[in-house]
């Protein structure tokens, strides 16, 4: 968390803080520093954040440190076991050239994990950002303009009643070929998956944000801002958005976790990225046929997905506690 967003909320809550939160004013700190202090006391969240940063660094910097192309076919060294197998099975086929082993075409598992992680994380973050933008937009519009409220919320309810996973699968099938032709095989599928996940996961954010905005509209500082004639286009970015940021961030963590899972589920069902293009879900799916002989090829990508999602969920838990003024400061 940087200091950059700190300017927003502090200016929005410049009026004296009500109640017992004197300590906050005494510290002269912004709300965000306080949230950060509370966040650090949540052990799971700190561990989760550390792990997420490490995984992200591993995926971003990985190709520079481990300079093996994931698509490289090293057929001489195919079907290698991971190096640690030599510990209990001295006859195992291992090589330092492929520390986590290689698949039936001799592709390096470590390099595939790095490349797959880049795609999975990129899909997760982009899809989450898209769904947050849509959700916040719908939520703020519905909460702030009562004319739009009925229409937008009925629409949200309708989308919530759609069977989303089947529809997502159908969307993959429908638009795969046309987008592949327009943007190339990788970019096309990336756009399709990100858009698909984004437009099927914004509804909860919209509902939460709308509820928060409705509650905010009753507060005095909004009334004050309105009485000096602040128009909606200034009111929303300056006073509304900074104050619903906490709910958005909590639901963003949930969104990131579910986007990563949905992407790997799509890949697992064979309707995600093309087969020569590794993602964590794809690696897992491709290895299930021979998992009896090579369990590590299933376990490593599976662990990567699970631990990433677990750490994101813990971050969400920590953020929720940190933003909750009833818990904060205890």
């Amino acid at each position, binding site marked *: 968390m940087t200091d950059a967003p700190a300017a927003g909320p502090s200016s929005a809550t410049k009026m004296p803080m009500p109640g017992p939160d004197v300590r906050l004013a005494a510290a002269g700190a912004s709300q965000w520093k306080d949230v950060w202090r509370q966040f650090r006391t949540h052990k799971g969240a700190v561990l989760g954040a550390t792990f997420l940063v490490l995984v992200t660094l591993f995926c971003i910097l990985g190709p520079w440190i481990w300079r093996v192309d994931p698509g490289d076919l090293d057929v001489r060294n195919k079907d290698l076991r991971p190096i640690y197998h030599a510990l209990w099975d001295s006859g195992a086929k291992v090589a330092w050239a492929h520390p986590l082993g290689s698949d039936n075409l001799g592709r390096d598992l470590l390099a595939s994990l790095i490349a797959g992680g880049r795609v999975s994380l990129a899909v997760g973050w982009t899809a989450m950002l898209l769904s947050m933008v849509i959700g916040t937009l719908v939520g703020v519009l519905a909460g702030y303009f009562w004319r739009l409220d009925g229409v937008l919320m009925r629409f949200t309810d309708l989308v919530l009643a*759609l069977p989303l*996973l089947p529809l997502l699968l159908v969307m993959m099938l429908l638009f795969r070929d*046309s987008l592949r032709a327009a943007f190339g095989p990788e970019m096309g599928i990336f756009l399709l998956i990100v858009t698909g996940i984004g437009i099927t996961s914004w509804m909860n954010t919209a509902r939460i944000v709308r509820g928060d905005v409705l509650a905010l509209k009753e507060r005095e500082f909004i009334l004050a801002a309105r009485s000096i004639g602040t128009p909606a286009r200034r009111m929303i970015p300056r006073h509304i958005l900074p104050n619903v940021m906490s709910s958005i961030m909590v639901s963003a963590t949930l969104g990131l976790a579910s986007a990563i899972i949905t992407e790997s*589920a799509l890949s697992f069902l064979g309707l995600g990225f093309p087969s020569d293009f590794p993602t964590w879900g794809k690696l*897992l799916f491709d290895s299930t046929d021979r*998992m009896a002989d090579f369990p590590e090829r299933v376990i490593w990508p599976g662990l990567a997905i699970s631990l990433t999602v677990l750490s994101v*969920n*813990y971050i969400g838990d920590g953020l929720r506690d940190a933003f909750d003024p009833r818990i904060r400061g205890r």
Partner: protein
Amino acid sequence: MLTFTIRRLVLAIPTLLFIALVIFLLLDMAPGDPMADQPLTIPPEVREEMRRALGLDQPVYVRFGLWLYQFFVVEPLVVIDHLFGTAYSAGQARVISWQFKSPVMDIIVQRLPQTLWVVGSAYMLGVLIAIPIGIVSAVRQYSVFDQIGTFISMVGFSVPTFFTGVLLIVIFSVNLGWFPSIYDTQLRVTDWSSFGQQVRQMALPVFVLALFNAAQISRYMRASMLDNMTQDYVRTARAKGMDERTVVLRHVLRNSMIPVVTVIALGVPSVFGGAIITEQVFKVNGLGALLITAINANDLPMVQTLTFIFAVLIVLFNLVADVLYGILDPRIRYD
């Protein structure tokens, strides 16, 4: 309450019609051709004739209207005929699957038992595990049991079912050989040994789904119990001298169950959706597997009907949740 239910049921009709339309229009854009699997030697005019026989030359609204008529009029008539031996549906065209060349509903009825058995028992088991765990975690908040329970439930809904499933197959069917990894749909339960076989083959998929569901529900249960534990009526009950057991199980539990029951009702349709993946992992020949094969085979009537059935389930269980909430909590008044 009755008027509320009726009003919601009436309101559900336009919702469902709209959803059916959305699905239909989406599928209408599908690039696939139902004639693609026919031999290339068929002359173009015969091919055109076959397309006409499938009704593909009609405009969108006619095809949508026909599907609606078939789904809402013909299929119920078939059910009535089947039950009472009448012949109302004789000569009426039903929704025909393009890949199986037989009525969609017949295939769905064949596949339904597998899904219901596996998914249904998994959900029941999940609920049965989750509620006691949630209660104990809340009563002994921050105890070792609570910490472990919270951690397991966190893991339970963070680890995707396709990974838990695959992991369990590696451990229990490959290495230990206790359970089969593939669900045998042909198995008929006739005696104790085949019953044991059925239980063994259901064990892994049921466990995977039950863990996932229990993880979510136990967290709701714990949160709801904790909300109630600090209420005034609990202090009153304790002040009256009731023992802790009565306070928790009689007073707190009953009040905490209200939101949890609605969460359980709301979760039922999403279980059918989530089961798509579990069915794929364990090769259960159920509705989820049917949907995946239909999507891959470009069988649009099948995809349309199945997706719509999922939508009906969602709308229905939303309604059930609302009604249950009103029945269980007399403070809620919808009228």
